[in-house]
């Protein structure tokens, strides 16, 4: 493990490069939505297929879930009712799109604050009594999830521009 960063620093590096820090691997989640317009964000490749906007809110939701599991916070404090997938747009406006982008940024910052506060000795303990997932696995998983959807957003942008 890095003597410079330590375990927590390593995990912060992982989630930050997956979200918005310069990364070696190419486009991260924030990079994939940079410059995307509401018109691009609502385009669907077919019926019942997700659009970019929905992928953004879905990613925010799972950052929120990770934060909740790390902190033990009660359910129900996400920005809106529901879970996992949220139909978008509610309003096809630049303001609505920017509001969801801001929510994504806010959930990331809240998550990284929670990661920064973890006692490194707890990283390999389960997130709760009923969970099989450790804090370390949860955080690693959130980073991978961001990149998984960044790849899909890049694909959607190309398909939608034809």
């Amino acid at each position, binding site marked *: 493990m890095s003597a410079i960063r330590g375990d927590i620093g390593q995990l912060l590096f992982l989630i930050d490069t997956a979200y918005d820090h310069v990364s070696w*691997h*190419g486009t991260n989640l924030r990079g994939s939505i940079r410059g995307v317009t509401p018109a691009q964000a609502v385009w669907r490749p077919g019926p019942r*297929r997700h659009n970019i906007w929905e992928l953004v809110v879905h990613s925010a939701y799972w950052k929120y879930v990770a934060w909740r*599991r790390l902190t033990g916070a009660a359910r129900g404090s996400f920005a809106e009712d529901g879970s996992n997938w949220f139909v978008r747009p509610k309003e096809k406006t630049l303001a609505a799109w920017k509001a969801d982008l801001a929510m994504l940024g806010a959930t990331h910052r809240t998550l990284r604050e929670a990661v920064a506060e973890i006692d490194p000795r707890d990283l390999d303990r389960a997130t709760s009594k*009923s969970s099989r997932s450790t804090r370390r696995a949860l955080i690693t998983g959130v980073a991978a999830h961001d990149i*998984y959807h960044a*790849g899909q957003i890049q*694909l959607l942008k190309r398909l939608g521009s034809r």
Partner: protein
Amino acid sequence: MSNYVRSLEEEYQRYKALGEAAFAQLPDEQLSVPTPGGGNSIAALVWHVAGNLESRFTDFRTSDGEKPWRNRDEEFEPRTVSRAELTEKWERGWRALFDALASITDADLQVRIRIRHEPLRIDEALHRSLAHTTYHVGQIVFLAKMLRAEQWKCLSIPLGGSRAYNDAPRHESPAAHRERLREPS
């Protein structure tokens, strides 16, 4: 203790299973169909992911991760492949990765290796590789979903199943997700 290496390996295993669960839903002829507009087929993405993994992780501590025998551009060329060929290529790439992971512990993460002559630590190389792999697996899943359309079977939480999922967080681990993906439908 190799907690960090193990957590990365579990994520890799999750995304390997996701890719497999996606192309398992497709008839053979759709494996090689280009994306609308002439983009990459699932076969091309499989060739690229597997080619990258095989090159990066074969003899990864003693030789550069970009092997002289790898032809990256060729990975993206249109190809028509059988399911057996696709599976063989896919497995070969992942085998190189998992063999490499089995050979290291957290104590090795500071060791320097080289990729395209660039020195970097093993932990940095693993981060970059996991990100690259998940990025393209996301695309494989999305393309398979497009191709399968209404016949697509959900790989994550089924629509309407979020409450049950949230009530049973034991399902959230990468290993549990992987096992769920491998269950016969």
